[in-house]
């Protein structure tokens, strides 16, 4: 009896309650970069995570906003989902949804001090990549892409979907080398505001997110 009480107390205090959860670790990485490009910043938002089974949503993560910072090594997060569910896919958005973009100030990963919020114009930067490339015509060969936008015609958020078989961790690679190959930095080295160019490049970048064993 005494043991049982201890056990209950243990579960109570350790947070392991009757409804227990499983963990799914989602990790992002990049391959070794082509030497020409010196990467300085690679940061993006992964939001609105859903687990689906036969294309219907089974679980939606609450407060689902994760800032990934590859250069700083902040490249993974854990999703806690109910133990008793089955799913075959994970889907999420690359970027921040429109409603959040118009609803004032947030803390946590959405804190404007994270360098992912425009100041001169309201809105989140969904994807930020900065570095130096010898072909760039920018000052000191700078390459700067700050991609975002939530207004009609400027909507840059990109939905992504991957097969996901638990309990294996989900590893996703951003194939930065394919991105670098696709770019002509002598023509395009800077995008710093929402618009047609940002939308196009966001679509392009989303296609380089790949399942990684």
């Amino acid at each position, binding site marked *: 009896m005494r043991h049982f009480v201890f056990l209950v107390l243990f579960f109570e205090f350790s947070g392991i309650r009757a409804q227990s959860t499983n963990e799914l670790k989602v990790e992002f990485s990049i391959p070794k970069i082509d030497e020409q490009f010196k990467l300085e910043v690679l940061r993006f938002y992964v939001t609105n995570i859903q687990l689906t089974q036969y294309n219907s949503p089974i679980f939606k993560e609450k407060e689902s906003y994760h800032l990934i910072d590859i250069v700083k090594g902040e490249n993974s997060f854990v999703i806690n989902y109910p133990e008793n569910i089955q799913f075959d896919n994970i889907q999420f958005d690359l970027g921040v949804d429109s409603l959040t973009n118009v609803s*004032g*100030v947030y803390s946590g990963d959405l804190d404007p001090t994270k360098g992912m919020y425009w100041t*001169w114009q309201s809105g989140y930067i969904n994807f930020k990549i900065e570095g130096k490339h010898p072909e760039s015509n920018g000052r000191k060969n700078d390459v700067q892409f700050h991609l975002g936008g939530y207004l009609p*015609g400027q909507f840059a958020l990109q939905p992504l979907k991957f097969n996901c078989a638990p309990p294996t961790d989900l590893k996703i690679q951003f194939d930065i080398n394919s991105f670098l190959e696709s770019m002509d930095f002598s023509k395009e080295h800077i995008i710093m505001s929402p618009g047609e160019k940002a939308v196009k490049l966001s679509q392009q970048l989303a296609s380089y997110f790949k399942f990684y064993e």
Partner: protein
Amino acid sequence: MNKHILLFVVFIAIGSVLCSVQFKIDSEINPILIPDNWPDPVYNFSKKPLKAKIIEIGRSLFYDPILSLDNSISCSSCHLSFTAFTHVDHALSHGIGDSIGTRNSPVLINLAWNKYFMWDGAINHIEVQALAPISHPAEMGEDLNRVLEKLRHSKKYQAKFYAAFKDSSISSKQLLIALAQFQLTLISSNSKYDKVKRKEVTFTKQEKSGYKLFKKHCSSCHKEPLFTSGEFENNGLPIDPTLNDIGRGKITQLAMDDFKFKVPTLRNIEFSFPYMHDGRFKSLSEVLNHYTSGVSHTANLSSQLVYGIDLTSNERVDIVSFLLTLTDKEFLFNPDYQFPKN
């Protein structure tokens, strides 16, 4: 005793007539009164209630140059309470190191009803508005993280944030909410116009004539009771080639929005000169002359101005006399809005 109860009942009755909705702030400070017949505010007060101690932080910050790079410029440098929270006599706003911006600083009046902020509506929510002037190189030129560092080193702000949030770590969210809450209290609803509407006073003959003309020629954009539709319009200002400002079009990147600027409120207009987004007009008569004979037919000209506004010189004088009834001395000299004593 009975007399007291009667007085109380009368007091409550008067109170309920004067204000239909009342958003209570923690006490300590005057509550915000939303006058009868006003539309619902855009800001969601029930979800994000105002708190006296948070407003107090916002007020301190509003008057504190600590927000700027060289500790020289505060919000109030360009938004002075006595002049409807704008920078009187300055066509374009000033920033650190004598830098000059490209727009006239707008009044800060009834912001709880604003859907968009800035002349081009670049900012979509009052809580994130302050990020723009803090970081703009021709305004405060400061980095948000450095502002937070400075505040965290200040005993005064540590204590104030602790009192308001039970947390002295000072986050950007707390900082921005505080600035927003103070500015949300800046409500002007006690002008002569308002008192006439409440049947407390009456217009003079000239003001009455001006009001009639105003309703005929101006109120479709400067809509009562806020005296703005909150929308963007091209009011036919000839383009200033030194600025080449396309306004709203820069934000939406839609050609149909080029040369449109936010319709400003006309409340307290007597004190908010110079006028227009670039402060090109020094007086109200210059403004009226523009609408009667100066409108330039640039792209996207407001449909109300295509055929011009025809006003005799007497009618213009009458309109100006009406516009002066939008002056709200209780707003302009409200001690709760001024430089804080502590």
